[in-house]
């Protein structure tokens, strides 16, 4: 076993770190939020130019030959900087879904444009009643004059309001399927809103929405969704690790600086112990993300159990670390102008997104298979 980064991976990590330091410091981030510039594509084009949008895609699909490890490296650094763009939704979730489908002209073109930063993708899969359970889809697709008509409601589609193309899951009479819709053509059916982390999301209210492109049918859809969400969850948890790490050490620095009752706060044992508990949560999260990555080579249900175990643990760690980082800052932690509250808000969103702790514990409880049947761990 080898946990160290390869030279290429190290270079990628350094590049992202440097970029975020220069382009994504807290003040510029908040300036963009305040001027409603989250939706412009300046950053997105830079991501493309730096090769990040294809980092986790194989060369034969036009990518740079990396894997989920590369995406995870990018997202951990994005977590440190609270990057607002829908990288996971577009470059991970949507692209991995496309990459898991049989190669077609359609998918190749979409991937090419996505890697080049010319199109932003979104995947509209989750629905209000799914509550994080990826198996639950009520949206229906019915054939209509050589096209399809979609009906149903998709909720919390990350990046929806700035996406160019949307992958929509729906049930047909034959079973699960994926469709492509052009965002511009369905603007009236998009209900855009911000999430508390200042990212853009939206609901998609499909009412006889036409789609001429069926991307996949029952034979490939569920596996493609499973692959896409596995990578997306690994990246989301990596991002949480980055955000928790920064939140923890910002808090550490604050405690050492801040004086109260004639002593700096870091001398109070109860605060020291809380910080130790936060560090434990961070380190456990970091560790279980490796398990998530390792599961990429496993087959279901072992992979799905590994992904759910990871998300369950990271979801609760994110809340604990985020809330306590604010707590230990005191009143200043509650202010919009100070950074720590934004870490808390992003960690709240991550904790909820694609299934919260309980959703994933339920999946873990109701699927069989032990990681330890084979001793140390599965291979």
């Amino acid at each position: 076993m080898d946990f160290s980064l390869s030279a290429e991976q190290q270079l990628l990590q350094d590049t992202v770190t440097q970029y975020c330091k220069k382009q994504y410091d807290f003040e510029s981030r908040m300036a963009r939020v305040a001027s409603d510039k989250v939706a412009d594509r300046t950053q997105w084009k830079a991501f493309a130019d730096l090769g990040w949008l294809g980092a986790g895609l194989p060369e034969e699909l036009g990518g740079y030959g990396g894997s989920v490890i590369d995406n995870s490296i990018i997202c951990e650094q994005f977590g440190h900087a609270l990057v607002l763009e829908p990288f996971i939704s577009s470059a991970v979730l949507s692209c991995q879904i496309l990459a898991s489908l049989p190669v077609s002209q359609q998918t190749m073109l979409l991937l090419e444009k996505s890697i080049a930063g010319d199109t932003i993708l979104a995947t509209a899969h989750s629905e209000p009643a799914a509550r994080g359970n990826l198996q639950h889809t009520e949206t229906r697709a019915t054939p209509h004059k050589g096209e399809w008509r979609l009906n149903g409601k998709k909720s919390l589609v990350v990046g929806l309001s700035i996406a160019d193309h949307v992958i929509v899951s729906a049930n047909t009479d034959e079973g699960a399927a994926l469709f492509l819709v052009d965002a511009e053509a369905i603007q009236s059916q998009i209900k855009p809103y911000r999430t508390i982390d200042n990212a853009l999301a939206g609901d998609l209210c499909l009412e006889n929405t036409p789609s001429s492109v069926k991307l996949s049918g029952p034979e490939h859809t569920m596996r493609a969704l499973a692959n896409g969400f596995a990578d997306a969850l690994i990246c989301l948890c990596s991002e949480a690790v980055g955000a928790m790490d920064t939140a923890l050490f910002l808090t550490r620095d604050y405690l050492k600086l801040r004086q109260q009752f004639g002593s700096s706060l870091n001398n109070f044992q109860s605060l020291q112990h809380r910080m130790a508990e936060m560090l434990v949560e961070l380190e456990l999260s970091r560790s279980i993300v490796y398990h998530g990555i390792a599961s990429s080579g496993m087959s279901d249900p072992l992979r799905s159990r590994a992904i759910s175990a990871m998300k369950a643990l990271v979801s609760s760690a994110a809340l604990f670390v985020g809330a306590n980082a604010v707590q230990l800052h005191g009143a200043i932690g509650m202010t919009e102008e100070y950074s720590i509250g934004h870490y808390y808000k992003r960690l709240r969103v991550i904790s909820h997104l694609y299934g919260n702790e309980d959703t994933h514990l339920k999946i873990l409880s109701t699927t069989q298979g032990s990681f330890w049947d084979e001793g140390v761990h599965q291979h």
Partner: protein
Amino acid sequence: MDLRLSPDDIIFRDEIRAFVETSLPADIRRRGQHDYHSHKDDVTRWMRILYSNGWSAVHWPVEFGGTNWSPLRKYIFQDELRRARAPVLDRCALDLLGPVLFKYGSRAQQERFLPRILRGEEWWCQGFSEPNSGSDLASIKTRAELSGDTFRVNGHKIWTTEAHYADWMFALVKTESDKKPQASISFLLLDMKSPGVTVRPIWSIEEGLTLNEVFLEDVSVPAENLVGTAGEGWRYAKDLLTHERTSSAVISHTKRDIEQIRRIASRQPQESACVIDDPLFARKLSRLECETIALEWAVLRSLSADQDDSSSDAVASVLKLKGAELSERAALLAAEALGDYGIAVMNDPEGHSTRYPSSLAPPITDDEEIGVSARALFRRATTIYGGTSEIQKTLIARSILEL
């Protein structure tokens, strides 16, 4: 031992309930369901309605316009107001300043200020915290220098709740430079419309506004606005901060939050059923309910205990500590019940100011779901303000456990 409400108390409760039912205006009631920070206009209107019934400061002594109700009845009164989610009144004036003026204020001060508070005519804010003082009030730096019959005040207050609503501030200021910190502080009443007062909003993470910074530059304050004796301000402030024993448990809010969560979770779909049918969600709600029942009975015990009991400060710490925790958990559970919209930004649709230009909002229609996401963020502060949970634990360890 008799653990029932007396028949008279039940009649009392029903009267209050009927009063609120008929007297709380429909638009204020609607905004109460939203559960954002109360609007100033709503509070003022509601104060006047209460005043016309003699109930705008029920916990004040009768001679100042209050009531001689028992502690239990005062609790029932507040509980019924919360039940209807009536606006939260100006607590700075009613709970903090009032008791100080009864005890230490001059007759002139009492006559000048108390009736206008009762009638909802003047709003107050508390000028205690400063950028580097935190919970340690003895270290404040704002100075007031007396020349003739006027104080000139210079300093910088922070975390000033409702300063943007306030007509007046009661402030701790340094007047005596040569004494030890605790004996150098005075308690001053300061007109917020005075020249030299600048209020800067501090936006909170939920994008709402309750806190402010207040800059005081050469503000003139008449010497008659000094409360009590110069140099005694710290003692008055300590007295004031321990006055309220049970309200910090915010039990009346949390009880209604639980019922609200149950309603939301019974509406929100989860697969082929509702969120409330999920055993894991239901467990969290039931657990919250247990602890809230326990806390309410701790409050009831405290209400019927000897009010001069020396351990009452420590009991107040228990109630604050647990009350704050439950209040935040309730807000988070409501957000969880609401699902995706629980992490969506939804600014007060009837509010005046928003932090960011974007007017995007999720398509929520039910009144009691509108403010859920913002409230969950705002309540992150419950374990911070009014003495952090860490400070409460230290107080409990020292006072009750004598550690």
